[in-house]
């Protein structure tokens, strides 16, 4: 369970201070799947990145599994190891094989021996149908394969929550499906998920709740069917009219 209270984030730029998140309040309970939509530049990525502290919130609190992770004495690395993150551009480590990509963190953090980690990596790869790629290097993978492996890499840490920042936006259209189906399976298994995506079909099928973010605020939130079919806010309507 993660609980975000009055989250603000500003960046200092050459043009002065830019307020990107202007007071976000949201609770995501265990097993929930929250999809975040909104126009480009509205702060979706910044919001996700604040959740695992890749960005340091300017103000507000984030309570994760009972602990305020914005307080200064929290062990950030430990928090992050429980929150998987999947990026638009995969960010696989190009100098390591697929197996090494997956086992690096669990072994370095002494959660597993190399043998145990290897074994689990194979099991995870099998689940996403990429067992034969264990010894391949990332540059030989298609985008869809790379993203499935990036998901597996996060799962190897046994996170209690997964963050996805536009996981299919960099993919050729024919590869979107294979990644979404892995995410669907994950959702079915009960994983808590926060997903930024433009895949409205996925949002409708999988999300328990959809947040519409605009100019740093949650303008509207509802179940996907309600939000998509019966949006209340003018800006939500405008946005949906463009993407649906």
């Amino acid at each position, binding site marked *: 369970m993660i609980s975000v209270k009055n989250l603000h984030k500003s960046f200092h730029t050459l043009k002065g201070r830019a307020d990107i998140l202007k007071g976000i309040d949201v609770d995501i309970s265990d097993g929930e799947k929250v999809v975040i939509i909104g126009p480009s530049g509205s702060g979706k990525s910044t919001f996700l990145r604040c959740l695992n502290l*890749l960005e340091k919130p300017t103000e507000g609190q984030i309570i994760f599994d009972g602990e305020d992770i914005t307080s200064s004495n929290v062990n950030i*690395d430990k928090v992050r190891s429980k929150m998987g993150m999947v*990026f638009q551009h995969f*960010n*696989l480590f*190009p100098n390591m094989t697929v197996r090494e990509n997956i086992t690096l*963190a669990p072994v*370095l*953090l002494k959660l597993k021996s190399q043998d145990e980690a290897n074994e689990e990596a194979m099991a995870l790869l099998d689940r996403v149908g990429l067992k034969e790629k264990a010894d391949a290097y990332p*540059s030989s993978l298609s985008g869809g394969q790379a993203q499935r492996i990036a998901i597996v890499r996060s799962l190897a840490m046994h996170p209690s929550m997964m963050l996805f920042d536009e996981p299919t936006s960099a993919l050729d259209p024919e590869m979107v499906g294979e990644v979404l189906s892995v995410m669907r399976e994950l959702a079915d298994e009960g994983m808590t998920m926060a997903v930024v995506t433009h895949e409205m079909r996925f949002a409708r099928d999988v999300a328990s709740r959809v947040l519409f973010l605009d100019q740093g605020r949650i303008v509207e939130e509802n179940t996907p069917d309600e939000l998509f079919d019966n949006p209340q806010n003018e800006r939500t309507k405008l946005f949906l009219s463009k993407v649906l």
Partner: protein
Amino acid sequence: MSLSEHLFQDFIAEKRYMYLVDGLKNTVIITAGALILGIILGVIAAIIRVQHQNKKNSSEKTGPVLFILNVIVNFYLTVIRGTPTIVQLMILTFAIWKSGQPIQVAIVAFGINSGAYVAEIIRSGIQSVDIGQTEAGRSLGLSERMTLQKIVLPQAFKNVAPAIFNEFISLVKETSVAGYVGIQDLTKGGDIIRSQTYDAFPPLLAVALIYLVIVIGLTQVLNILERRMARSDIR
């Protein structure tokens, strides 16, 4: 004297070729030692500079330790790159570390010198690694240090390996000033022969040839290295 008599006098008589052999040995020792020290210093200096730069960009407060380290590094880079190598070598030998064993002093002097150049190479290497790599490492729960060590630095080294190798090649030639502080390196060896036989051309030509062979050899190795690396990228 005929040419063969000249050559006999210069290289064979009194085993004068040993000046070149021993000199080459010293040149290799100094170069290798300085290279290792230079890489160590260069990596440390580069990490400090990059860390400081990152903290500044992320508008986080830089701690006092990092701030001071960065000042020291900048001073180091400015002074070393702004003064001639030979002057640095002489200052270290005659003013700072008078009791030092000459070869050791030379290794340290050339190492400190090389480190300043390696630092800039490594820094550009670290910055050439996509920020997404660091973010991926950190979001798996790896510490800043583990991420740097296991993810960023290996890729940075790979990106700048040719540049470091070039630094190595120029270092071989730069050590030829070691004779100024009384070290019998390859160049000095040739010069000693010249002073004994009053015959300048053959011994100095021999010295030049040896440097040339080393540099061409190392360049070949570099080419093979680059081809190998290019292949592992396509894999």
